[in-house]
């Protein structure tokens, strides 16, 4: 397994790990160094990496991936309610159940390709969302969302409103107030929660890297390239597609369970088409088919949602306070279109600008910078760098 990766891959792993682990410090200048946003970076990074295993490698665009995120969250919260507040069983259950769910949906949807596949996945996800919001309320607690509760005092209280936590009860673990998710006693909120997510992100990134460099990954890329030819080469493509779909569904389930682990609530709107669309946007924004791109895209969108939306006029005023009064008023006026309540506008423009000027997403931008840098070095008379010769590693 370790032979999977080349030296440059290990270097990539090392750099990625270093960046993720140091996020609490490096994110400070842009005001993103607080646990919740960092957790979201990691969680949606996992979601996008998983989505990219399907979309980036096989070219199959699922428009219903949020369903697996939602299922993962529900599974995790039910594990908290029924078994234990320890996060490991929740994690295992979520991944397992999301995997089964993905298998069922994938088995059916993958009978079709192209936009027909996209609409099938969308249809399944929307059905899940609509039912979870209304008819399935006994399981999902509907609009309010499924939450952990104190241990119920009598069997008359429904399981939605009172937990049983069989394992914790058997072990005689005492609870005070709101039950808190933990990893063998270590609280999974705040920074410990972030580091737990970060470890998961690094593991997920590593697995995705391995998949991308493996025989299996090459087959997936071959599907994207020319599925028909692959059939004549003796490969049955459907099992590969289903496997990729299930793996990426399990990633989504893992992301869903981490959402529940860092914040024990699961709501139906996690399954809505807008949530599915969000992960598509994250992936395309960062760079489809690249390894790092989806994580970057996820970070950018979550940053916009959390931080850009919070820059109200007061913050703008102090940001531009170095300007003379008239100019300050002008800039505050101008920027207030794009931040605070206007953060959607920024997002919309960002999508357009990136796709117009950087087809291939943010990673394309980095590649261009890299190339320009290399050219500059060569024209200085320096020796040609090795990087220019490395054959398209990052495409993986």
């Amino acid at each position: 397994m370790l032979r999977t990766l080349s030296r440059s891959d290990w270097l990539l792993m090392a750099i990625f790990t270093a960046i993720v682990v140091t996020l609490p410090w490096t994110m400070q200048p842009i005001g993103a160094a607080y646990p919740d946003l960092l957790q979201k970076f990691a969680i949606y990074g996992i979601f996008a990496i998983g989505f990219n295993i399907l979309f980036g490698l096989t070219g199959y665009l699922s428009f219903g991936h949020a369903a697996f995120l939602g299922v993962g969250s529900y599974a995790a919260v039910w594990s908290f309610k029924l078994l234990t507040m320890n996060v490991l069983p929740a994690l295992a259950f979520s991944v397992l159940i999301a995997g089964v769910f993905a298998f069922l949906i994938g088995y059916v949807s993958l009978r079709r390709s192209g936009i027909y596949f996209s609409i099938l996945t969308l249809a399944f996800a929307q059905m899940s969302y609509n039912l979870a919001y209304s008819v399935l309320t006994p399981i999902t607690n509907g609009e309010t969302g499924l939450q952990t509760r104190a241990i119920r005092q009598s069997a008359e209280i429904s399981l939605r409103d009172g937990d049983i936590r069989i394992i914790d009860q058997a072990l005689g673990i005492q609870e005070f107030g709101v039950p808190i998710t933990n990893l063998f006693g270590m609280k999974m909120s705040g920074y410990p929660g972030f580091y737990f997510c970060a470890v998961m992100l690094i593991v997920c990134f590593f697995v995705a890297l391995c998949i991308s460099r493996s025989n299996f990954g090459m087959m997936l890329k071959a599907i994207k390239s020319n599925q028909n030819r692959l059939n004549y080469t003796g490969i049955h493509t459907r099992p590969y597609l289903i496997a990729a779909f299930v793996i990426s569904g399990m990633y989504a389930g893992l992301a869903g369970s981490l959402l529940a682990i860092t914040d024990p609530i699961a709501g139906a709107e996690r399954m809505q088409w807008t949530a599915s669309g969000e992960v598509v946007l994250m992936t395309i924004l960062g760079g489809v088919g690249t390894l790092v791109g989806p994580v970057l895209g996820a970070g950018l969108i979550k940053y916009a949602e959390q931080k850009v939306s919070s820059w109200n006029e007061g913050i703008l005023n102090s940001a531009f306070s170095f300007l003379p009064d008239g100019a300050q008023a002008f800039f505050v006026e101008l920027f207030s279109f794009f931040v605070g309540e206007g953060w959607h506008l920024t997002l919309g423009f960002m999508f357009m600008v990136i796709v117009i000027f950087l087809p291939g997403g943010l990673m394309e931008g980095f590649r261009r910078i890299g190339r320009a840098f290399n050219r500059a070095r060569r024209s200085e008379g320096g020796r040609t760098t090795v990087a220019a010769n490395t054959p398209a590693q990052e495409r993986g």
Partner: protein
Amino acid sequence: MSVVELTNSDAAGRGFTSGIPDKVLHIDDVHKSFAGLHALSDVDLDVRQGETHAIIGPNGAGKSTLLNVCVGRIKPDRGAVIFDGDTLTGKSPHEINQLGVARVFQTPEVFLDLTVLENVMVPALSKRDGHFKLNPFSAIAGETSIRNEAEEVIVNVGLKNHVHAVASSLSRGDKRRLELAMGLIQRPKLLLLDEPTAGMARHDTNATIDLLKQIKEGGMTKVIIEHDMHVVFSLADRITVLAGGRIIAQGSPEEIKNNPKVKEAYLGEEQV
């Protein structure tokens, strides 16, 4: 007369079993029509173990349809294709390939986003691992034996300098070489070649002929569809001539050269 020979072997072919080693492919009374137009009718054909069998014929004779029937792309209206004891008719393309039938496409159908090496490794892995294997952790980079083998084939087809090039960057001729390499790497029991030299310069054509001759010595059975009579007569052990969806002649190159029916069919179209 080859047609007589065909009827003779046909009698034996009805009771075809894998125990008879010299008949690898048996095409049994295949019919196919598209919208009332008979593309193939009453086609019976045997391909012997180790031989290079050329199928020639004027344009629209049904050569490509016949090939497509063999690989499962087209379902015949009637009749069957039997390969090494297995009926191919009704099987899906990947199953047919897994039985040992590989196809080289006329217009290159390579994996444009993959490198040349990867393009060749895909069929190699398919041969080794079967039609599906979930191996997300077994690294491409760790497949040294298959990698060496693939590199060898790539060198053989003359793509030595392009091993790590992305397939989409290859010239059309190089893509055809790659196609050939993808067929050869599987060491199939039967290799179906659809005009392997079409569009190649004479020099390249000769190189391809040499390469195919080499393989012949290795004992691989081949069916070639070809327009270029130079190629056909350099390679073929036996030749089947199709015209209007029917077999009009079959026999050794010498027999075919002198067959009046063939001359008639090709009159003004090809110089032999």
